[in-house]
């Protein structure tokens, strides 16, 4: 838990941060957002004392950070920045191992940890020996995140980490970032200037303007009840649609309306089972429940001997558990599918999501919401 208590920071006459009081819950992502110069980055950098405030106190788990030597404090806080700042002369392994080595862990433990965090950010072992210059922007930021997580800090500070990454990779990174957070449950302070990113990633959003806190609340609460015009403008016109982007596919996935089969199953057997249950889709799973393909009865094709043909597909379209409803919707439209399978990060099938469920949600979003 991080608490800002009456923090003020002046650069010259101007207060960059003006009497900020903010309490960030343990294990959540708090997004700091606002126009440039609003003090969001300054506020973030106070937590690891890259900037010291003129007044006020900051507590982590009840202890003032000003009681600690800055260097010691920083080693227990993960830090990810837009420039990433990987050390170009260090291999990926050595970059990630930097802090564990400063902490004087033994080499065996360091090695295990490096591969563990690499796996977390979905980079395989072959990346360990590469150098930053051999990586793409997205891969570098994954390594940057892995490096910040290496010493298993409780607090993670992220300063527009995905800001310099192209839109497609940014989406992928944001997605895997959420999945990682689901596993590690760190207390994260995340600075962004992109409201969509804030809505997508945040548990809570702190909106700042000219050094002051304008509104601090859960994402859905801010979307439902913006404090003032400034917040409304920041959120933009399409608030209902944005609200939809908060909802995750996993919460609408159902385990009905399809059957699962193993790979060797006879076509006719599958067709019979589908016809008996009046369904059209059967997903093919391997021994670890991973989605390997699907069979479906193609009702748009001509009947053969009075029956529709059954078709096998090896790579069916899918969404992951944390895909937002907006994204799910756009994929359904794109691929012309009314139902999409929902899988975990390891590609295990957890259910299917239906277009109707999304429509229902849109209708509800239009209606006044309870807090």
């Amino acid at each position, binding site marked *: 838990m991080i608490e800002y208590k009456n923090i003020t920071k002046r650069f010259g006459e101007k207060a960059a941060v003006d009497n900020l009081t903010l309490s960030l819950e343990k294990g959540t992502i708090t997004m700091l957002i606002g126009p440039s110069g609003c003090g969001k980055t300054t506020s973030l950098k106070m937590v*690891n004392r*890259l900037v010291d405030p003129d007044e006020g106190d900051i507590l982590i788990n009840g202890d003032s950070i000003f009681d600690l030597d800055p*260097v*010691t*404090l*920083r*080693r*227990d*806080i993960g*830090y990810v*920045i*837009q*420039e*990433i*700042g*990987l*050390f*170009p*002369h*260090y*291999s990926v392994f050595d970059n990630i191992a*930097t*802090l564990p080595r*400063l902490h004087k862990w033994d080499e065996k433990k360091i090695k295990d940890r490096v591969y563990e965090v690499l796996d977390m950010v979905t980079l395989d072992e072959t990346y360990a020996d590469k*150098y*930053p*210059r*051999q990586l793409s922007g997205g891969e570098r930021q994954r390594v*940057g995140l892995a*490096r*910040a997580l290496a010493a298993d800090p409780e607090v993670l*500070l992220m300063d527009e980490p995905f800001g310099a990454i192209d839109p497609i990779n940014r989406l992928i990174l944001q997605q895997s970032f959420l999945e990682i957070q689901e596993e590690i449950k760190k207390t994260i302070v995340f600075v962004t200037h992109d409201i969509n990113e804030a809505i997508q990633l945040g548990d809570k959003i702190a909106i700042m303007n000219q050094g002051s806190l304008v509104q601090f609340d859960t994402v859905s609460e801010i979307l439902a009840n913006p404090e003032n015009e400034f917040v409304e403008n920041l959120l933009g016109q399409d608030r209902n649609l944005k609200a939809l982007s908060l909802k995750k596919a996993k919460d609408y996935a159902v385990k009905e309306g399809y059957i699962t089969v193993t790979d060797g199953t006879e076509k006719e057997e599958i067709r019979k089972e589908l016809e008996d249950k009046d369904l059209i889709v059967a997903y093919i799973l391997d021994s670890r429940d991973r989605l390997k393909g699907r069979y479906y009865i193609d009702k748009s094709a001509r009947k053969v001997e009075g029956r529709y043909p059954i078709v096998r597909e090896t790579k069916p379209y899918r969404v992951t558990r944390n895909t937002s409803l907006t994204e799910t919707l756009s994929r359904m439209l794109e691929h012309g599918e009314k139902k999409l399978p929902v899988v975990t990060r390891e590609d295990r099938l957890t259910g299917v999501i239906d277009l109707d469920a999304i429509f229902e949600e849109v209708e509800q979003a239009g209606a006044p919401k309870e807090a």
Partner: protein
Amino acid sequence: MVPRHHDGGTRGSFSIPKPREAIPIDNILLFLKYYNDRILYEFLQHLKIIAISIPISILVSVPIGIYISSRPRIAKIVIYIAGILMTIPSLALFGIMVVAFAPWGMGLGLVPAVTAITVYSLLPITRNTYTALNSVSEGVLEAAKGMGLSKRQTLWKIKIPLSIPVIMAGVRTSVVLGVSVATFATLVGAGGLGFFIFSGISRANFAMVLVGAILVSALGIGINWFFMRLEVWLTPRGLRVDRE
């Protein structure tokens, strides 16, 4: 200058029998034949002067460069002074050294020569060290600081390794400069390949001058090549790999 005729043939001296129709290639071969020992000796002497002054210069310049890298105001002054030292004509610098060391009885020989070349080579190394340390990317430095590397750790683990290519380029400039400036060493009694050039001039021996000049150039080119290899070899691997 009227060429003087010597008896010729005795070892260690040489003359041009018919200077007016001098054909350099013949004379050079003859020169090389009679002077091979001396050539080797002066060549090694030249190398020795460089081999002593450059390490001294590195030991002085790199720490200065590191020291001033975080002190821009002092840096300005130091680099300015080093720049002035470099504008002193090299010949004059050797003269100054002779006078400066004379009171200690070291006005002639290796001491003034090495000192002059060391002074001369300070600037490229100091300036490159300073520039290199200050051009490490902001992002890298912020990450290092934010991760909890101390200033000292940042310097030794990050800044210096990343600066090696540029520092080494400065060293290379200095060495090549040193090789040519060391030509004057012979004038202060420290020997070196300059001996052939200056003796050749005073004796109007074209072959002698040419051999001296070619050897100095060859040494310069050779040393330059060697230091280029060294530069590559010392550069951390991560800076050498290109994006695949």
